[in-house]
C-alpha cells in the first residue's frame, strides 16, 4: 500500500517537516517474534536498529503494530544483549503516526477535507500496547466534511493477528465478519484505521463479501483535500 507511505510524507511536508526514509530498512521482525522464533526475530530487528543508527530524529511509523514491536517488544527481545540500550533508545524515539502529530507536534487540524461518513477501527496493538485511542479521533474530528460514526465493536480485534489469519483462517474470518458487520451497522461509508495490516484483513473480507464499504488508512484521509 504505497499510498499510505506517500500520504505520510506529504502530510509531514505540508507541516513543514522533512522526511527521510533510510533505504536499508526491511521489517521490524514481528512475524518471527510472534511465531516464537526469537533468534531470527533478533537478526531482523538488528537490521532495523542498523537502519536508524545514524540518526537522532524521531522515527514515525504508520502502523500501531510495528510501533508496538519497536517500543514494547524490542526491550524484551534484546534484554541481556549488547544492543539492549540501543533498542530501548530507539523505542523511546519511535512514534505511531497519529500520536506523533497530536502529542509531539501538537497539531490536530491538518487542513484536510473528506466529505464522508467514516468509522474508526482501533488496531489492537496501537490501542492496548501503546494506549492510542484519542489521537486518531482528534485528527479525524478536524477533517472538513467528515462525519465520525463510532461502531459498537471499534475496539474488538479484526482477526488479523499475523500468521494466525491463515493458521486459524476460520476463526480469523469469523472475527473479520463481526468487525465488518459492526462497521457497516454504524452507517459509515469508510472504515479508517491506523494499521495497514488490519485494513488488509478488513478490506479483504468486506470486498469478498461485496459489502459497500471502503477501507482507508488514517494518513490517506488526512492527506485528502
Amino acid at each position, binding site marked *: *500500500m*504505497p499510498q*499510505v*507511505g*506517500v500520504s505520510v*510524507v506529504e502530510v509531514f511536508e505540508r507541516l513543514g517537516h522533512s522526511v527521510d*526514509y533510510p*533505504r*536499508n530498512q*526491511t*521489517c521490524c*521482525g514481528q512475524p*518471527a517474534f*510472534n*511465531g*516464537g*522464533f*526469537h533468534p*531470527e*526475530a533478533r*537478526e*531482523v530487528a*538488528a*537490521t532495523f536498529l542498523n*537502519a536508524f543508527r545514524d540518526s537522532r530524529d524521531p522515527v514515525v511509523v504508520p502502523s500501531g503494530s510495528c510501533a508496538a514491536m519497536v517500543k514494547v517488544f524490542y526491550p524484551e527481545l534484546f534484554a541481556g544483549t549488547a544492543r539492549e540500550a540501543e533498542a530501548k533508545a530507539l523505542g523511546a524515539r519511535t512514534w505511531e503516526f497519529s500520536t506523533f502529530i497530536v502529542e509531539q507536534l501538537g497539531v490536530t487540524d491538518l487542513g484536510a477535507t473528506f466529505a464522508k461518513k467514516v468509522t474508526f477501527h482501533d488496531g*489492537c*496493538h496501537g*490501542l*492496548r*500496547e501503546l494506549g492510542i485511542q484519542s489521537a486518531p479521533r482528534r485528527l479525524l474530528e478536524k477533517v472538513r466534511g467528515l462525519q465520525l460514526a463510532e461502531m459498537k465493536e471499534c*475496539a*474488538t*480485534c479484526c*482477526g*488479523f*493477528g*499475523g*500468521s*494466525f*489469519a*491463515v*493458521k*486459524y*483462517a*476460520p*476463526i*480469523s*474470518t*469469523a*472475527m*473479520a*465478519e*463481526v468487525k465488518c458487520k459492526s462497521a457497516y451497522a454504524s452507517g459509515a461509508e469508510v472504515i479508517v484505521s491506523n494499521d495497514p495490516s488490519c485494513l*488488509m*484483513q478488513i*478490506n*479483504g*473480507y468486506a*470486498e*469478498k463479501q461485496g459489502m459497500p464499504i471502503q477501507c482507508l488508512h488514517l494518513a490517506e484521509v488526512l492527506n485528502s483535500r
Partner: protein
Amino acid sequence: MSETKIIPLQQFKHDSAEVAADGDRREFLRTALGGYMNTRTATQHGYQDWEAARSGAAEIKWEAIDRLPELLEQFEANLIKNGTKVFWASDEEEARQYILGILREKNAKHVIKSKTMTSEEIHLNSLLEAEGFDVVESDLGEYIVQQNKEAPYHFVFPCMHLKRAEIKAIFEKIAACPSDDPEALTMFARQQLREKYLRADVGISGGNFGIAETGHIAITENEGNARLTCAMPKVHIAIMGIEKMLPRLSDLSLLQPMLGTAGAGQRITCYNSIYGGPKKPGETDGPEEMHVVLLDNGRTTLLADPEQRDALRCIRCGACLNVCPIFKNIGGHSYGTTYQGPIGAVITPHYKGLQEFKHLAYASSLCGACTETCPVKIDLHHHLLRIRRNSVSEHPPLMEKVAMKGFAFAFTRPWLYHLGTPLARLGHWLSKPIQGTKLDPGYLWRKTRTLPDMPKESFHEWFEKREQQKKAGK
C-alpha cells in the same frame, strides 16, 4: 467426556472451525456476553478507583505467591487447629483416591457438589459415578451440563451455550417440565435439588480463596447451592489448588467484590462465605467432619517458571473469556480443556504438556483484550508469546523453521529485500491462474478474503524516484 485418543490440535481445529461457521450460535454467545459487558462497565464505575483496585489486588495475589510455602503451612496449621483434616495431593489420582476413601469409610451413597473446577480437573464425577455413588451437581449451570453429559462450556457460566428450549428438552428426560421460561426452568431445578440436599451424605465444594491467617476457605457464589452443600451433609470435602492462598482475612474486602464485578458485573455476588472447620461446640448446625484437599497437579511446574507463574494469581473470574474475541467465536468446548479461554491457553500447556497444547497459544490474534480486563493484571497475551517462544526453542516445527530462516535471511539483507519487490510482482502475476486453488500459497487467506493487487510502484520506488528528481532539479 472420553479424553483418550483425542489429538488436542486436531480436535481444536475441527471444533473451532465448526463453531466459527455457526453464525447463529456465535450471535447467541455475543448477545449473552453483551449484557455482561454493560452491567460490568457500570459496576466498575461504582468503585472509587477500579484501576487502582486492580493494581492492589494484583499485589495481594503476588504476595500470596511469593510467600506460598509459609502461607500453605500456616493455612494447614489453622485448619487442623479447628478440626479440619488436610490432605495434599500431587496429582489427580491421589486426590481421587483420597476422596473415594472418605466416601467409602463414611458409607456414603448420595453426594451433593457445588461448583468446583478443581473437581472437573481431576474428573471426579466420572470416578464416583463408576463406583456407584449418586453424585449431583447443584450449581444450576453445572446441573444442566451434567444432565446433558457434557463438560462445562465456560468455567463461570457452565451452560451459556444452551438455549432455553434445549434446556427444557434436557429436563424433560428427568421429569415433566412445563415451560421453557428461564424462571420456570430454574424452579424445576430448585425442586429437583432440594431433596438431594436434604438427603446427601457428603457435600463436595471448591474454594475461591484459602485464608492462611485464620484457616478458612472462602466461597463466592450466587445461588446458595454452596451454602447448602456446606450446611446440610454430615461431611464436607473442599478441593482447592495450592495457589489459592490469601495472607489475611481482610484481603477478602478487596478480592471478593472484585471477583463478583469482573466475573458477573455485580458489586459483590450474592453469597460470600467462609468455612473453617466442622460445626463448633455451641454452633447450631454444620458438618461433623471437614476435609480440605490441597491439589498440586501441575501447579508447581508452572510455579517453577519465573515468568508465567504470574498466571497462578488467577482468581477464576472468567472475565478474560467474556471479552475474548476468540472465545466468542469458537465457544468453550472447542478448547478441549478444563479451563477455557485465555487463562486456559496459558496454564494448560504447563499442566498437560507444552507440545500437546501449544496450539492454544497460537490460536490467538494477541489482541490483549484479556490482559486489559484481568482484575489481577495477569500478563495473559504476552504469556501466549512466551509459550510460543518456549515451544519453538524446545522443539521447532521443521517447515516453520525453514520459513523463518528464509525470512531472517532475506530481511537482514536490504538489497535482497528490495530485489524481492519486482520478483514478488512477477510472482503475483504468474500466480493468477492458480488463485483460488489449493496450489496457491495464499489459498487459506483467499478462500474468505481478497488480497490487494501488487502496486505498480512500491513506496520505496516512489521515494527513490522522488529523491532522484529532487537532485536533478537542483
